């Protein structure tokens, strides 16, 4: 018969849609012009990767992430003012998608950006507490 409706999931969605993605202030955006862009994010290096190891193994001090046309668009929407819901709405309207279709795409993309340190998602409750 019917499984239990889980109120936790509902609260989770509510919090997620009202959260605001904020760009990493240290990230540097570089528009390549051909529908692509690069975002440079500084990497905090381990203490043992400093001199003298870095003299023999010069490692990059930043990570570079390439964005395609759609990635650029979403990056542009993450201006620190728009909530997740507003970003999804704008994206859905632009690409003639339903809200839920756009939500799946945006959430997946923002999850990748978060994992790579390009953005953080600020939740409403956390904001109130701080």
């Amino acid at each position: 018969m019917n499984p239990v409706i889980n109120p936790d999931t509902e609260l989770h969605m509510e919090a997620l849609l009202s959260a605001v993605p904020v760009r990493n202030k240290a990230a540097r955006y570089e528009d390549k012009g051909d529908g692509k862009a690069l975002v440079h994010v500084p990497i905090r290096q381990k203490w043992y990767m400093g001199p003298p190891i870095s003299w023999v193994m010069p490692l990059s001090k930043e990570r570079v992430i390439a964005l395609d046309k759609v990635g650029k668009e979403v990056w542009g929407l993450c201006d620190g003012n728009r909530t997740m819901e507003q970003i999804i709405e704008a994206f859905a309207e632009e690409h003639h998608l339903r809200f839920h279709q756009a939500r799946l795409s945006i959430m997946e993309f923002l999850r990748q950006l978060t994992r790579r340190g390009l953005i953080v998602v600020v939740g409403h409750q956390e904001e109130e507490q701080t």
Partner: protein
Amino acid sequence: MDSARYVRWLGMSMWIPDEWEIVRHSVREERGQLSFVDRRKQRLQVAWSACSRRPDTKWVFDDFRARDKHRTPDCEIDENFQFEKWTGYHRTAEGQTLTRAGMYDHKFKRWIDVAIPWNDSLDEDFEKELLHNFRTVGPDKGRNRIDAFDIHLDTPESWVLSKAEVGPAETVFTFDSGRGEVKVRRRAMPEAWFDGHLEHLLQRSTAGKWRGSYSFRSSRLHETCAFEGREKQFSPRWFVQRRTLREDRAWLCPESNAIFQVTSQFPRKEPLSPEEVNVHCCKAQEAQA
């Protein structure tokens, strides 16, 4: 309902508000469920299970009530709810009402129950509209119809939906026709990834494993690219004359802003054309069909 959308899935049809979406689905006719959400909450859950005879509804709802009481001991349960073929009750807990109702589907011999959690207070008119529009529907002129996930299609009655994969901007339905397998794929946001050449799209999807020819068919409403080919790699099936063939049709529908691709794979002696499935990508195409 101000703006409603028609959903038809495994012999059930319903009208739902346009902003509701399916988030959980089953492809088995014997037992399964469909869950609908709006932006924030679950709004409707339909569950079904095969049942050769009409079950004792009193026993079924006693069981539901007992489970509800166990879960939320303080809940209030309204015993009286009967509407058309539906029987059920309303449960109120912590200021939120939930409707549970069930009916027996004589056509497909299954028990169907619905759970409708209400946002604030119970909207009886809307509840009646929702339940009134819920129908059990059989094949129409020997064809089964599916209207869900923005794909509208009909297939021969004997075909079985074996898989439905719904991903970001992409939906794939897989049918088992008895002779082979047919996949219907809908890909949204073509402006983001499509280079304007359907042939390239088919070349990418057939690369490596298939060898064949591409052609264009402009007789249809939307210009369609077709692929007809056979397995490229040497396999033991060659010896027993069971080599698999493949046919594809792909087209861009500007109205729905999506690319549709129908693929059939079948043994050499039992041809299966992608044209056996009618995909109604837009109103104009449906009218033509």
